[in-house]
């Protein structure tokens, strides 16, 4: 029996609440010194919040942090840096107009003048690059570097400040497989030096490849601490997703009709030049619900916004009712007239105007409809009457259209959006995160509505990060990972673990 060494980091009973959301509940964690520790969990499981607490971005409501056995209060990033913690954020904290070496010394300049500090940093960069194979031109502008190299700058920045504990938040999300492999090599070298690494990811393959131990988070809580060598991707997937009370939605067997929406070779390149949707192909038939399963940020949002005409594809065609949509037709107003309606993923930021009256939000996108007033005018009477009828039909509470939109709960806001988009008998309905932030009662209502719509012959594309919801509602399920559609299953035959693997990029297409 040897005395176990003091862990590098220990968390005990850490809790954090944002308004109504309990982001972390009684989280405990122990990371041995000189190890690589993985933290996995679905999107929104609370991983990033936990790491932000560790880095002093937020203070925990309760709980204790011990670094190297000592209880520490970390109230700001400066405290965290003082504790020897370095963090590589998912969105890099770099200044693109500055050079590599300037970025590295910010906050650790070593005096009021830069000359000495920059020289020392240069020397250290040379040493680090020979030690770890982290070659980089110290005078290059960060904005002109590839993403992989930018991440290298982030790591060097942390090491320059003497970080003994390095936290990486979804570091491979933006890397090519080769770059990711280089990163892992580096992490192993850091470990060999005795440094501690915490790796936050949802990619199980990475966990299996590089970590010593892994902790699983679900809905703000730690649900498992495992030794990597003794676990397997299926076990982790199951722990991530959990054995939930199975959501049941009564629905008749599907009777799909003709194809309504067909997508071939659809790709999207974002402003930074990344291809965030790659070569998507799917067909949507009348009277079926096709669900997209995936961890947030794997191309589902882009797919939805492309189909809704909010962004324009780099390549590929969209066929509606067998006809290829022209560029002029790919805008939300025209698509609505063609019968393609859209319930956006973020109702507060996109689907509603929270500063407007509820009655006004209920006609957003349809304010040119002749029913709402004579000629160029809108009639408040007509708008209010419409909203009253819609609110009654969709059980919006309070049924007062003269209230500000912001005053309604998430579920009722969602019913306003849903009612608005489906009352006009769409041919195709795009639905993003229909029940995010929605209470149980409203979830059931919304699900019943969607199924009724499908039975009435509407083609529905459902995007949700809630796998359970996708499985309960869909007739067919497509899994997405890294901007690609990685697999398709008929919902009745799909099993949760298998889908979890597809979503994590472990499976047929990966």
């Amino acid at each position: 029996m040897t005395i176990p060494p003091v862990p590098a980091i220990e968390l005990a009973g850490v809790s954090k609440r944002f308004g109504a959301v309990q982001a972390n509940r009684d989280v405990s964690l122990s990371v041995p010194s000189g190890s690589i520790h993985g933290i996995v969990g679905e999107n929104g499981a609370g991983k990033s919040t936990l790491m932000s607490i560790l880095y002093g971005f937020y203070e925990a409501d309760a709980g204790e942090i011990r670094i190297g056995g000592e209880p520490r209060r970390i109230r700001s990033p400066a405290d965290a840096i003082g504790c020897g913690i370095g963090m590589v954020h998912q969105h890099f904290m770099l200044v693109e107009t500055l050079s590599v070496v300037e970025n590295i010394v910010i906050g650790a300049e070593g005096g009021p003048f830069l000359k000495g500090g920059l020289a020392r940093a240069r020397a250290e960069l040379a040493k680090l690059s020979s030690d770890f194979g982290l070659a980089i031109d110290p005078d290059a502008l960060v904005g002109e570097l590839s993403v992989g190299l930018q991440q290298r700058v982030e790591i060097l920045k942390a090491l320059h400040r003497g970080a003994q504990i390095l936290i990486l938040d979804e570091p491979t999300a933006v890397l090519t497989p080769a770059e990711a492999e280089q990163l892992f090599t580096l992490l192993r070298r850091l470990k060999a030096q005795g440094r501690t690494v915490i790796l936050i990811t949802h990619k199980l393959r990475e966990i299996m490849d590089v970590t010593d131990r892994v902790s699983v988070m679900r809905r703000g809580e730690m649900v498992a601490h495992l030794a990597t060598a003794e676990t397997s991707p299926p076990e982790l997937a199951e722990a991530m997703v959990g054995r939930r009370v199975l959501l049941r939605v009564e629905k008749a067997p599907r009777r799909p009709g003709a194809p309504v929406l067909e997508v071939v070779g659809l790709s999207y390149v974002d402003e930074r030049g990344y291809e965030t949707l790659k070569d998507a192909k799917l067909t949507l038939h009348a009277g079926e619900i096709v669900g997209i399963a995936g961890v947030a940020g794997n191309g589902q949002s882009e797919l939805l916004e492309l189909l809704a005409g909010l962004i324009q594809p780099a390549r590929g065609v969209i066929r509606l009712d067998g006809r290829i949509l022209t560029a002029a037709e790919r805008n939300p107003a025209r698509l609505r007239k063609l019968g393609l309606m859209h319930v956006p993923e973020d109702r507060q930021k996109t689907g509603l105007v929270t500063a407007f009256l509820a009655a006004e939000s209920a006609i957003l996108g349809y304010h040119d409809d002749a029913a709402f007033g004579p000629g160029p005018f809108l009639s408040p009477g007509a708008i209010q009457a419409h909203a009253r009828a819609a609110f009654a039909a969709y059980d919006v509470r309070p049924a007062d259209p003269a209230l500000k939109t912001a005053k309604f709960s998430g579920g009722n806001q969602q019913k306003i959006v849903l009612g608005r988009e489906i009352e006009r008998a769409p041919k195709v309905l795009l639905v993003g995160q229909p029940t995010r932030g929605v209470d149980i009662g409203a979830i059931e209502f919304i699900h019943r509505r969607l199924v009724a719509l499908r039975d009435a012959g509407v083609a529905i594309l459902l995007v949700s990060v809630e796998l359970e919801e996708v499985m309960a509602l869909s007739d067919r399920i497509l899994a997405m990972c890294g901007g690609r559609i990685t697999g398709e299953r008929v919902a009745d035959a799909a099993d949760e673990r298998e889908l979890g693997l597809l979503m994590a990029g472990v499976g047929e297409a990966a």
Partner: protein
Amino acid sequence: MLGLDPSISRKSFPGLRCAAPENDGHVMNAAPIELPRWADSGLVPLVSVAAALLVAGLVVLGIGESPIEATALLLRGALGSAEGVGFTLYYATNFIFTGLAVAVAFHAGLFNIGGEGQATIAGIFVALACLWLAPLPGFLLVPLAVLAAAAGGALYGLVPGWLQATRGSHVVITTIMFNFLAATLAVYLLVEVIGKPGSMQPETATFADHAILTPMHRLLAPLGVRLPATPLNSAFLLALAALVAVWALIFRSRLGFAIRTLGANPRAAAYAGISPARITMVAMAISGALAGGLAVNEVMGVQHRLLLDFTAGYGFVGIAVALMGRGHPLGIALAALLFGVLYQGGAELSFDKPSITRDMVVVIGGIVVLFAGALDGLFRRLVAGGLRVGKSG
């Protein structure tokens, strides 16, 4: 900003749009502190104006005069006589136009500081119309000249709007530059081209009698209403009509709905199929046309010729009027009236107390802009705190 129309480029001055991208309210009701509507639209501006007047009172005290006496003189000067009221309403006319101009742009999430320049160009247009179209009879000439003013202002607002929408050059900076460009153009035209020959003053010839707006005392004389002669003229009625028209536009029309959506939540506007570029240009044009009302009142209604610098800072005070009126025509009417009282009362006051010049109004305007605009968050916090104390106490 996934999903935003790329034609609204934010390449220049990304943060200068009125609506900060992270909140979905526009400049006038974007504060995170939630207040009841009556407090939001009534109490907050009232408290900030009261604070502004308090600061002004301190300034008066600081220069060795009694604020109470000054207030009494001011009120008497502005409201104590029919003549005073006439002047007050004449000034209010200018503030209604410039306040509405700022407000319409605000509703679209745009900050139009170019009211002065737009009014200047409108003044040139209106002067040219009055001079060149003089052979036409009055019933044709007057409406045409008013339309010319609106067109001039609209055009001069449209160009910055177009530059913002298509080239990404920020409206705030371009409208500032456009103010100076308009002023230089006016000097050039008045000195070199359309100035009255032989006059040392940079001014045009006086318009023909049928090319001016009827003064109110003459307009109402046939109805048996006897008023003293003041600069108040039929442009006041136009201003009242503009109040109603802007109310109908913003709160009762499809275009207004689109304008408000863009201003409150650009993402939702894109989602709703509203073209940000088109609405930006339209809103700036309407804003400029309204600023043109200042030229109608001053050039056609009072001076009856084009003078240099007739805009006299009314465009900037319009920002205070719009902020204080919370962008609503009713609030703007009240705020314009307040500034009319301050202007006229201030003029009378400076007769009696030469040490208190009318520049006090500009100071009050500045403090109102600071308190009701830039420090809105602080004042909301104060009002919210006050309400809480009121409830518990």
